[in-house]
């Protein structure tokens, strides 16, 4: 029987990079990429930034041209939905009625925005932001006269959107249930500093505030946000950025092991040896964290894509990439290397008042992560140090005049300095 090849479900960054890496590695069987959205794979990060202001056009978001798919003999199926995976017969059923057989299946289904279980979420003027269509809708609403915008959630999507919307001249309030912004992703030091920057730009930040309902007009348009403490915030546009949930429906219905993400091993295989899962939807074992984690980032999707393509081509290597993230808010460049959860010590280097500094995080005396604002070299070097398991001790980092550039370029450097 002819090879059935590889089917990849999900045409985001992870899905696209998987099919590209398969061909780059010389995989010769059929390759099919299935995406639910009606457009070719595109970059999501600008959707909360330049795309909303009009600085970035749709064609600049497109990751690959049509000719890429034909030249690489990759079948791209856009605007169709994988309805069911049948692992016993290695087949995917599509909403359009078609079926795809596979030797290997990669689930790169991503995540979807969480919503809040409060009344009024279905009012007109209440939006989430994940897809190009979401961003186009939001951009349309932001192009008119100034609005009263309430952003629910101070995560990356919420804060980036708040910064962009504020920059467009709208009135912006951010409501966050946690006591600090980006509580899951950042150290308290950086949370505090970043909150100050938003406030100085005229954004109202309401922390530790719980939303109980959205109020609407008789015409069904959102009019306000009700908080548990009794406050009612007027709003004619509500942007919901309260996190994302992994898209695991297909895996669950196929009987695969699922628990806040599709559970995979260090080679990104599910408990069915013909099925892999990568990116936002996958929960994988992190040697650094000593537990299974799930990450929502371009880096994670892209690096896992290359890892899974290698595995399918018979070059299995465990997934051990150092996680990193970036964010742009106002003119600030935020870059995070490693994972800072579980740190027991931090050292701040640089100049927080001048918006050029890094928070280095340590656990038991070892560097585990770095958060940088306006210090790209610190971020770049921290990624390399974390990857090689080296780095300064907290005492070294605390020495007057310390910086990572001189640390890696000093003559006795243990680090892979190549600057």
């Amino acid at each position, binding site marked *: 029987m002819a090879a059935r090849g590889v089917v990849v479900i999900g045409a985001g960054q992870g899905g696209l990079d998987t099919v590209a890496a398969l061909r780059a590695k010389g995989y010769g069987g059929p390759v099919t990429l299935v995406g639910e959205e009606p457009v070719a794979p595109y970059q999501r990060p600008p959707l909360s930034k330049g795309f909303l202001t009009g600085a970035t056009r749709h064609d600049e978001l497109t990751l690959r041209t049509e000719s890429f798919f034909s*030249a*690489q003999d990759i079948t791209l199926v856009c605007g169709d939905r994988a309805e069911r995976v049948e692992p016993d017969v290695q087949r995917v059923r599509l909403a359009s009625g078609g079926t795809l057989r596979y030797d290997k299946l990669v689930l790169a289904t991503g995540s979807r925005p969480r919503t809040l279980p409060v009344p009024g979420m279905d009012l007109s003027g209440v939006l989430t932001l994940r897809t190009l269509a979401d961003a186009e809708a939001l951009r349309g609403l932001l192009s008119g006269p100034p609005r009263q915008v309430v952003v629910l959630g101070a995560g990356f999507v919420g804060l980036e959107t708040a910064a962009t919307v504020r920059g467009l001249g709208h009135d912006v309030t951010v409501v966050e249930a946690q006591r600090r912004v980006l509580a899951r992703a950042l150290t308290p030091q950086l949370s505090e500093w970043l909150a100050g920057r938003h406030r100085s730009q005229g954004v109202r930040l309401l922390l530790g505030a719980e939303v109980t309902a959205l109020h609407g007009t008789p015409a069904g348009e959102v009019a306000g946000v009700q908080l548990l403490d009794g406050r009612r915030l007027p709003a004619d546009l509500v942007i919901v950025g309260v996190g994302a949930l992994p898209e695991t429906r297909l895996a669950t219905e196929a009987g695969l092991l699922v628990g806040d993400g599709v559970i995979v091993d260090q080679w990104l295989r599910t408990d069915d040896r013909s099925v892999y899962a990568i990116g936002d939807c996958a929960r994988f074992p992190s040697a650094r964290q000593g537990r299974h984690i799930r990450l929502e980032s371009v*880096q994670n999707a892209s690096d896992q894509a290359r890892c899974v393509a290698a595995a399918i081509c018979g070059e299995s290597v465990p997934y051990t990439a150092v996680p990193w993230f970036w964010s742009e808010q106002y003119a600030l460049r935020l870059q995070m290397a490693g994972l800072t959860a579980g740190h027991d010590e931090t050292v701040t280097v640089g100049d927080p008042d001048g918006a050029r500094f890094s928070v280095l995080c340590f656990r038991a005396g070892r560097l585990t992560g770095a958060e940088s604002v306006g210090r*790209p*070299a610190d971020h770049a070097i921290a990624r390399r140090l974390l990857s090689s398991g080296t780095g300064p001790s907290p005492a070294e980092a605390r020495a007057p005049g310390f910086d990572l550039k001189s640390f890696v370029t000093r003559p006795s450097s243990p680090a892979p300095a190549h600057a």
Partner: protein
Amino acid sequence: MAKITYLHPNGTATVVDVQAPNTVMRGAKLNNIDGIEAQCGGSAQCGTCHVYVDEQSTVPLPSMDSVEDDVLYGTACPRRENSRLSCQLPVTEELDGLVVHLPEAQS
């Protein structure tokens, strides 16, 4: 428009015409040239669009700003005198004839 040559580590060359306002990075992506990842999409965040400008090249390039200089501290392959981030090289007529070498790895 500019003719740009991308030299792969195995010695093969791909020559393509790249239109403004694309960058040398985007020129590679649009023309299906392997060896440039550009995970951050071209915002000088990630250092995975690293190239070595051919040492014989006399094509005038924009000078390097401090962000690009900083990001080049973290490239997967060693930084050299002729290292650049291809996302920071906007294509103009002046870039016609540019030759860049792709590194062995980007991440």
